[in-house]
């Protein structure tokens, strides 16, 4: 019996020793595996979501746009102060007096990653390719009549009508030039897995979850400050958060990270455990009111709703104040003026308007607020507004919530089935027109209802002839006159109350302490080429 017990003890001891040895081995693996602390190792950048395509003609997701901006250059770039900086163009565009011709002199010392030269023909090829096959080619919207190459390094763009916003469009990542030699082999097709551009980096490895970028030796401008970027994707906000906290990645860049994690990382950076930087806000959040809906048809009710929304409280409750309240449709970096056009939170005025509309005192308005169920912040926003209304205006207004997946929401917006819906918008290029036109434009107006146009696809169905006139006029104006016209549009839109701007979301990045302070350009893209390790 004792002998048997002795054998059992020995077996247990053996098991414990083997288990401990396994654990020790495991911890040794983790010691040998350290991301990029060694010299000349690439910087590891993590974000949420896969990159399905690196083709500029296909790019629409923020993450793809970020990487394409490292692999390619555009004609112009918006600086952090909002000014237009020539990149592949030698100088600012020269616009003819009638506003119908744009001349762009190009740099002569630029090579593509396949070492073929960049010239006007290559630029024309890339723009035409985008017009022909680009997923978002509607942003050009029949504005370009023809593209000519009178000289090897001179591009001539003829427009259908004058367009002041074309300058912003020329900074669009969709117009990143690609090597004609390489891309003409695949006529009419997207090239998802590579990008032969002119950027500071070239791609050496691609899969939707991982990309490796190394500096391009023949780059025409200043070489990147690091030895390369390795991009990896994570699927959840928690994984991203854990990866940066445990130093498994060097940089975390994501707009999709949850607000709780965002706050925790913000606090870590305040304590000095991480470095945080924020870029210019380009993404706005807003509520679209369906002006065709019976309950929301009277403008005064929509005006009352605008006054009933406490942006400061909601921003604090939902994002801990990290999403800035917004009372305009255009983000501040490209603001036409600094005076917000939309009304402030004012429950007294809201109540007054509701009463004028025959509501309150046992006659409550029930507003069905739809939120995108796959966007956590939308749900929190809806819940918070509901409770805030219960606190402030319970005798006049009641909010009923309706969660629907975003793809379904987009599909059904133009059917007019949602009374009020929370949406987000990022302009395709940094110009006020890229915000005002997609939210307010209408091709066919009957009184104040839009029958065909962006307002239908945006779910508001609200239109105004003066806005249409101003939008068109603004395209033929420059400087302050243009800004005045755009300001007029915002004022009319605020009076119409078909949209309720909520907040703006700034792109944020967190990096490890041994990495330099990151910087964004004026379009909200992280300058990957400027990031360096402090010890290198």
């Amino acid at each position, binding site marked *: 019996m004792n002998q048997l017990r002795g054998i059992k003890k020995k077996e247990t001891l053996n098991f414990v020793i083997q288990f401990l040895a396994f654990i020790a081995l495991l911890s040794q693996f983790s010691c040998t595996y350290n991301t990029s602390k060694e010299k000349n190792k690439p910087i590891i950048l993590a974000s949420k979501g896969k990159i399905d395509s690196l083709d500029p003609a296909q790019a629409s997701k923020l993450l793809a746009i970020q990487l394409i901006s490292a692999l390619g250059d555009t004609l112009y770039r918006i600086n952090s102060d909002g000014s237009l900086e020539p990149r592949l163009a030698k100088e600012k565009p020269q616009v003819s007096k009638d506003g119908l011709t744009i001349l762009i002199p190009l740099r002569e010392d630029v090579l593509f990653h396949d070492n073929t030269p960049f010239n006007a023909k290559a630029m024309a090829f890339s723009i035409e390719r985008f017009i022909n096959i680009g997923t978002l080619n509607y942003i050009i919207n029949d504005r370009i009549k023809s593209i000519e190459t009178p000289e090897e390094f001179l591009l001539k763009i003829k427009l259908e009508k004058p367009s002041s916003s074309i300058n912003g469009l020329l900074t669009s990542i969709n117009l990143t030039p690609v090597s004609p030699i390489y891309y003409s082999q695949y006529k009419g097709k997207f090239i998802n897995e590579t990008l032969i551009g002119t950027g500071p980096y070239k791609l050496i490895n691609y*899969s939707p979850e991982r990309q490796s970028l190394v500096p391009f030796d023949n780059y025409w401008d200043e070489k990147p400050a690091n030895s390369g970027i390795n991009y990896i994707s994570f699927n959840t906000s928690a994984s991203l958060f854990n990866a940066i906290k*445990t130093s498994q990645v060097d940089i975390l860049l994501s707009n999709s990270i949850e607000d709780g994690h965002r706050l925790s990382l913000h606090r870590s950076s305040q304590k000095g455990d991480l470095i945080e930087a924020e870029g210019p806000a380009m993404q706005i959040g807003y509520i679209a009111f369906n002006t065709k809906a019976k309950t929301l048809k009277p403008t005064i009710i929509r005006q009352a709703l605008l006054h009933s929304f406490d942006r400061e409280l909601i921003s604090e409750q939902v994002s801990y104040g990290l999403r800035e309240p917004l009372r305009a449709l255009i983000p501040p970096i490209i603001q036409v003026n600094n005076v917000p056009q939309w009304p402030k939170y004012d429950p007294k005025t809201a109540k007054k308007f509701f009463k004028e509309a025959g509501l309150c005192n046992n006659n409550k308005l029930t507003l069905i607020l739809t939120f995108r169920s796959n966007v956590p912040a939308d749900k929190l926003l809806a819940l918070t507004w509901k409770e805030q209304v219960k606190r402030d205006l319970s005798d006049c207004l009641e909010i009923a919530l309706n969660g629907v997946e975003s793809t379904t929401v987009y599909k059904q917006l133009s059917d007019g089935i949602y009374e009020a819906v929370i949406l987000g918008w990022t302009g395709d290029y940094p110009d006020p027109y890229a915000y005002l036109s997609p939210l307010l434009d209408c091709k066919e107006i009957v009184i104040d209802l839009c029958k065909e146009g962006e307002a239908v696809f945006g779910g508001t169905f609200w239109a105004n002839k003066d806005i249409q006139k101003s939008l068109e006029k603004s395209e033929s104006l420059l400087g302050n006159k243009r800004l005045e016209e755009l300001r007029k549009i915002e004022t009319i839109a605020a009076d119409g109350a078909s949209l309720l701007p909520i907040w703006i979301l700034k792109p944020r990045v967190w990096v490890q302490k041994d990495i330099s302070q990151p910087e964004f350009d004026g379009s909200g893209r992280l300058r990957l080429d400027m990031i360096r390790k402090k010890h290198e």
Partner: protein
Amino acid sequence: MNRSKALLHYSLTRLALAPIMLWLISTLVFFLLRIAPGDPVDAILGNRADFAAREALRSKLGLDSPLIHQYFSYLKGLVHADLGLSLNNQESVSQIIAKTLPASLELGITAIIVAAIIGISVGLTGVAKPEGKTDLAGRLFGIGTYALPPFWAAMLIQILFAVILGWLPVGGRFPPVLETPKGSGFLIIDSIVSGNINALFGTFRHLLLPASTLGILLSGIFSRSLRINLEKVLNTNYIQAARSRGITEKNVIINHALPNALLPLLTIAGLTISSLIGGALLIEVTFSWPGIALQLQEAISQRDYTMVQGIVVVISSLVVLISLLIDLLIAFIDPRINY
């Protein structure tokens, strides 16, 4: 009909029925996707493009033709093993599946191995001393792992081993600092073939957490099933005869009872691996594992019809194939089974 002929007849019947089953499934998926709210054009363009742009993209994607034309064109492609192009990025669906399927298979097979090792060990330990403390603990383990919500268990394991202890990576399939070995897509095999020891360690380290989590969660089914089967087998006459001949209990269990008790486990393993190919979604999401389940989830959310159809057809084919192989294997091992 002798046994081998019956087996051949059975296999041919199953194989002949497979295309009918696949046709039914693919037809169902085709029409269900079209009924579901949402539209790939909206998923790609969001809520901003105008009518003309939407219609242009719809036409480019072939979504403007009548539904019945789309259906026959899809079936025609399927007959020629052409799964079409992804609506989202115009890449071949077959190519995308070829990239993601090995990741899911690698995870699934490793998880089954982990589950089998843990499950069999727990089951055997319990049976050695029925109703004892170890048996009770094993049974609790079986029920507990079966009942654990996968996402919760995965997050807990991730926090413990990747965040608190920092021993293993938070997610992904391969270290970002290394170059992925090319080949079959099964990174363990590719690393071994290329002789890249760093790549092998890297792959192993990334595989360890998701595979162990999945394996532990599945081990409950194995341990419980093995225990029940062993208990039955241990009460049979031939085991009593073996005991009466003075063979030790350990020998009786391992050499006489276990082989017969393992047969039902083979069926469970087969069914589990089939379901894991598409069903390990929560594990793939939590550990950012680029497998086919994750691809399917993304395709559904983007209303990428061709991608969803392609993945469902491939998964269904694999389920049919694996079930058939398991049946044949069991028939081969167990001479009592007749078809």
